[in-house]
């Protein structure tokens, strides 16, 4: 069955089981490296993408529920040559170790700050309460997000 998927501004027609979680269409069919399989249970955040402005756990989101909606992945924010200010904040703060969770951290923070540009550090912390980083780069990641949040607030 064919599904129409709008990802990072481009429309794709995929012949795929509509029960397939969005993650597999992104990481396999569209060969995107940003969203990652961490747990397959919606518990860690590694697979996060932004769908119509909301951070979504793509590993438990069936394709049928996102047909026609705007899906944004980490790749659409910026590039190594021209990173998005939030991505740049992560580079400036060296806020990564293995880097596997970074997709979920950045995409969750981005969706939250888009909607809550004046969020306090405590509110940002709450917004990330369901995201895991097992290298525990927490200090630097929060510093990076707060650095970006200050820019947004200005």
């Amino acid at each position, binding site marked *: 069955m064919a599904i129409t998927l709008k990802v990072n501004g481009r429309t794709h027609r995929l012949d795929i089981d509509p029960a397939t979680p969005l993650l597999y269409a992104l990481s396999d069919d569209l060969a995107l*490296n940003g969203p*990652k399989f*961490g*747990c397959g249970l919606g518990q860690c955040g590694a697979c996060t993408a932004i769908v119509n402005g909301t951070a979504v756990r793509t590993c438990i989101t069936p394709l049928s529920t996102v047909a026609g909606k705007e899906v944004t992945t980490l*790749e659409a924010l910026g590039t*190594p040559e021209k990173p*998005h200010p939030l991505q740049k904040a*992560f580079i400036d703060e060296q806020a990564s170790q293995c880097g*596997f969770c970074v997709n979920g951290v950045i995409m969750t923070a981005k969706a939250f700050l888009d909607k809550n540009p004046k969020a306090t550090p405590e509110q940002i912390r709450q917004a990330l309460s369901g995201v895991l980083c*097992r290298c525990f780069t927490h200090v630097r990641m929060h510093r990076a997000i707060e650095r970006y949040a200050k820019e947004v607030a200005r």
Partner: protein
Amino acid sequence: MKRRFLPGAGAALHSAMNRRGFLKVSGVLVVGFSSFSAKPGEAQILQTALPGSPALNQVDSWIAIGADGSITAYSGKEELGQGIATAQQQLAAEELSVPFERVKLIYCDTGITPDQSYTAGSQSHPANFNHGNLAQAGATAREALFQLASQRLNVPVDQLTAWDGVITAKNDPSKKVTYAQLVGGRKFNLTLSATAKRRPANEWKVLGTPVGRPDLPEVVTGRFEFVHNVRLPGMLHGRVVRPPLVGATVISVDESSVQGMPGLVKVVVKKNFVGVVAQKPWQAMQAASRLKVNWSAGTGLPRQSDFYELLRKQPARDVLLIDSKDSEATLGQAATVLKTTYYHPFQMHGSVGSSCSVADVHGDEATLYSATQAVWYQKTTSAMVLGLKPEKVRVIFTRGSGCYGINGADTVTYDAAILSQAVGQPVRVQLSRKDEMAWENYGNAHVMEERAGLDAQGNIIAWEHESWIPSKGNRPGTGTPGNVVTGMLLGFEPQPFSPGPAQAPRAYNNNSNGVPSYFAGRVAGKAQGTGRIASEKALVHNVVSPFWTGPLRSPARLQNTFAHECFMDELAARAKADPVEYRLRHLSDPRLMEVIRAAAKAANWETRPSPKPNIAKTGVATGRGVSCVLYEGDNGYSAAVIEIDVNQDTGEVTVKRIWTAHDCGPISNPDGLRNQIEGGALQAVSRALGEEVTWDREKVTSVDWRSYHSLPLGFAIPKIESVLINRLDEEANGAGETSITVIAAAIGNAIFDATGARIRQIPFTKDWVKAALEKRG
């Protein structure tokens, strides 16, 4: 998508030299580095290389200068997220006097790079930044370049200077020659020189500076390619079906149960290994969950609530780390004797991304993309698993999710290899969360008894440590694929266990930190420990584990340090002494004493005994605790002071502040070091407060992030301040596992300071703390 390294392309990338030519003849070699002061541990793991490895004593194995002047460094130590690739690139740049960006670093590809065993145990910094290997190869290459330049320019070596690939006469800048002109595109054909001088640390331009990680721009924008993102032409997707219960074996597999499922390519059964291959990942997952496998009953598990006591009753292989032979008698003469037991659970590596590998096995050749910590052992053991010749297997390290020791990376590489061999096409396998967590090689549980005697003044006159440690399997070595679950399912045995009595220690070895820091460490008449206690004994009972086990960040060292450093606090409290002063009183190693003083100073440590006076028994109580270690007995100094809140009504512990001090010799990258310290400290907080493998009588029950408790990004993160002590004249030590080692004990000591309750079992969960508080009366 194009692969960065297609099979066979590695050689083309480095056409400057035909490495294969000398790979074939090098064989197993023992490199004569005896003139270097390699420590016993290093000697064991660094001086031999497996067949096929570039020779460790040849400059060409480590450094290549291309015809275009490009500089490539090769290493057997890989980037796992700990920042060592950045530091190694700095090292090569420093020794060759070029900017950081001029060096390309290639690591852990058995087709290209030298065998340096595991990237583990905080050994990368000592191995490659001291006297041999990459550091000395760089120094030797530099010396050779200067000699060649001296001849070419007719200027004495000491009148030459180098920067950015150009050697210039100091007095006449018009006299210059480039590295490319001297050796570009050709081999050095040089043995590593023991006398070639390293760049002096006080003149470093690249090493020792906070260079940023070059991989981050790609990581944060989604361009970086993890092993999970490897995509080969014609690649299929595999999924494994693990036994439902520990010890269950395959009776039969009903392939008709998945017949006709969309995309299904093959059901693969080999002894107790079961897997499916399909066109798409979701199809493979569907088929794996639908496949009907008739499994035997499991072999059962001991009751978790009795487990620690059960450990003491097992047949044991005993190891005596230290024995002054008078400790029992001295305890008998002590004014006061304290005996306590500490407990540490099995804990998980719990990588945030479940493990993944891509294998391309066709005919008698295999190329494996793996996040293993040991590409060369993965090569030899995969050859066993596949029935191929080792020289036909190439393993290319490709970064996975942070592993912190042996996660599922090795086992999933066998999974992918077996499935690829069965279908003759490349296969990608990623484990399910449950398969990752139920079958990984857990960090060992520990039961640790401590017994000590004090004299009338409260000084420690004797101390005995005794531990029971269950283990099974390990990281795969050269010939032990059965050390991980897939190897076992395929019929290989884990490394053998044989019980036996302890021998008298012949040399001082505190690699496991089984010997407390306060011991004199006297073996064969020579005190080599860091402390002053002369009446000393440390005995380890190794027993068989019901689960696979393997190194988890700071293996044994974290557990032992938890016991030693909490017990030291108990002794200080009994002596009514300040915990910092009491530690210093019993130590002799000035560098260990210095990190304690530095952490205490940073924390504005108030000198007084613990617990705090006048503790209210309800509400929030605040306390502080201290802890220290010389990691592995010789590989990095660390101390921490921690401030905590304990909500005495709920039992909840909140870590508020962490002050740490570190001495790992010369600092190669201060920001990378801080990143490791911060991450290690918080990982330790998570492990101390909530992490524990759980099981019922048949299977592991902590199989996802609801049942295994890792602190998320939303937890109340303590403020961390780190004091870095930079000792340019000392050996480079490990830095990745020092902070994680001291945190649990410091938290336990802070809980005691705040509440007067001593908790001797990890994790310090709310219920456990509440129960301990209620026992105070």
